[in-house]
């Protein structure tokens, strides 16, 4: 059997339910891993060793009592440190909230607890989720586990969640995604993470960056793990007026492994065609793998996508400034410099700009809906470049030079803007050994098809089973869990 810290969440849940392993052993294995590696990785802001072990003992007792168990019973995970956790400090990656201890859980934290999951600790993040590199001047910059020699960013803003899952510090995590903050670290860290449709998952109890662009979602090793977690998290929440009343399907039932006849549109201009050559090669190969399994490919372009950066700046700039205005007046010096700078630029956004941006948003949503009326999913890289080194400022894309920040969010942000569900999953490695992320985008509220395609791809390939060698992995696929 594999070491416990490399076993995916769905397999751990099955092994726990079948009494092959105790939740206490599982939690201890991950806590030992954190003790050994997190001094360097800085994936966690808070580790909840005592409460996690107490919860694991209770979970073990429930297994031994033989009662009904949740679908993820006894499996530990790490919520990003902007999810409210009752009795556990929730900093938002900032010293402004260094002493904030919520008196209630965020809706999704409560729902995952009901499904049996245990909070192992709170993961690191770009301060207040306002940055795609995942930098944090207060709690340390998360280290991408795929390069032990060079400090490369884990991607943000959910950097700790990406690094923790990739290095085997926890089998699953929660991220939040306003411009790509689940998919970017998933891409750069070689894990699987899904941003659901806007309104599919409650944001109640989650510190906002931009209310109309924020999405909550799971990050884990496999599409199956994400399906299990999303099924537990999703659904209407009276505490979040943006949540949909649509019923939540059984996402795991959609994982048939079958992509015969699946219509896949490859996003070309602005996306795949401008990615770094090694990223493009991996993503093109992934498309061919799906085609060989029976999917039908064609090329797609989105007319208005080039305007998304301007419109997103107007929306996120205005909404983020509105949320932070009070602290910018009273705690200005307590923000890390890049976040303070970005927040202040929000003063430039007029009501005219904001509403024109929201009108463009309607256009982009219609445009994505239109191309998805004739296709089941769209395909592109999740990020145009692999993990950049800490401090790297510039990137070279197929259509010219770009700053790293703009490059990282370029392929993901359009689907925060449109609200469509999108997943990132590993589809290869660069010659330097850095992961490449494949992005699949689906119709509104059709996460099931996105997960089906991702799961089918993971049955065809073993990229998602690779592990960073420096973190104790072999770089090779593991033996099947439970074998």
């Amino acid at each position, binding site marked *: 059997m594999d070491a416990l810290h490399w076993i995916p969440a769905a397999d751990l849940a099955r092994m726990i339910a079948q009494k092959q392993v105790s939740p206490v052993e599982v939690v201890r294995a991950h806590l030992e891993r954190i003790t050994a590696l997190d001094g360097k990785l800085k994936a966690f802001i808070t580790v909840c060793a005592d409460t996690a072990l107490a919860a694991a003992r209770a979970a073990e007792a429930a297994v031994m009592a033989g009662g009904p168990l949740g679908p993820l019973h006894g499996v530990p995970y790490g919520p990003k440190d902007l999810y409210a956790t009752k009795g556990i400090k929730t900093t938002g990656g900032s010293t402004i909230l260094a002493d904030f201890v919520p008196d209630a859980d965020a809706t999704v934290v409560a729902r995952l607890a009901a499904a049996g999951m245990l909070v192992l600790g709170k993961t690191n993040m770009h301060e207040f989720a306002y940055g795609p590199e995942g930098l944090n001047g207060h709690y340390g910059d998360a280290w991408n586990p795929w390069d032990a020699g060079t400090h490369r960013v884990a991607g943000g803003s959910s950097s700790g969640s990406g690094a923790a899952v990739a290095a085997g510090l926890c089998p699953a995590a929660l991220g939040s995604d306003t411009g790509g903050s689940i998919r970017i670290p998933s891409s750069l860290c070689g894990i699987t993470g899904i941003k659901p449709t806007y309104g599919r998952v409650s944001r109640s109890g989650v510190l906002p960056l931009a209310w109309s662009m924020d999405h909550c979602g799971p990050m884990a090793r496999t599409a199956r793990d994400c399906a299990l977690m999303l099924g537990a998290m999703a659904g209407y929440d009276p505490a979040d007026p943006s949540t949909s009343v649509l019923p939540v399907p059984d996402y795991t039932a959609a994982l048939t492994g079958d992509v015969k006849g699946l219509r896949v549109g490859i996003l070309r201009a602005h996306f795949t065609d401008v990615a770094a050559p090694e990223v493009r090669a991996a993503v093109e190969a992934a498309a061919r793998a799906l085609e060989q399994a029976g999917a039908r490919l064609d090329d797609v372009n989105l007319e208005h996508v080039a305007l998304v950066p301007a419109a997103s700046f107007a929306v996120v700039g205005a909404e983020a400034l509105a949320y932070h205005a009070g602290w910018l007046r009273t705690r200005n010096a307590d923000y890390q410099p890049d976040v303070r700078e970005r927040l202040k*630029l929000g003063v430039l956004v007029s009501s005219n700009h904001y509403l024109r941006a929201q009108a463009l948003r309607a256009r982009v949503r219609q445009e994505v809906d239109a191309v998805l009326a004739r296709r089941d999913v769209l395909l592109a890289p999740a990020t145009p470049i692999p993990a950049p080194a800490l401090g790297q400022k510039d990137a070279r894309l197929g259509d010219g030079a770009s700053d790293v920040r703009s490059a990282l969010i370029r392929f993901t942000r359009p689907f925060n803007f449109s609200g469509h569900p999108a997943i990132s999953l590993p589809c290869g490695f660069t010659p330097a050994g850095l992961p490449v992320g494949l992005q699949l985008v689906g119709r509104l509220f059709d996460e099931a098809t996105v997960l089906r395609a991702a799961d089918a791809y993971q049955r065809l390939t073993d990229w998602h089973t690779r592990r960073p060698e420096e973190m104790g992995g072999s770089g090779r696929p593991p033996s099947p869990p439970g074998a």
Partner: protein
Amino acid sequence: MLPHMEITLDTLKRLTRLAGFEWEDAELEALRPLAERSLDLLARLDAVDLGETEPATQYRVL
């Protein structure tokens, strides 16, 4: 290509005051090049023909 937007320190200071903030001149001066790039970006929104499209202000999609 739209003309480059320029903003003086004084204009930036007035703008931030109108928004209810009092920030140091040094901080605003450091922000000025970024502010100019951001204004260039926002100007692209002024240039796009949105026809009769209404802003997507309704939160709930379904």
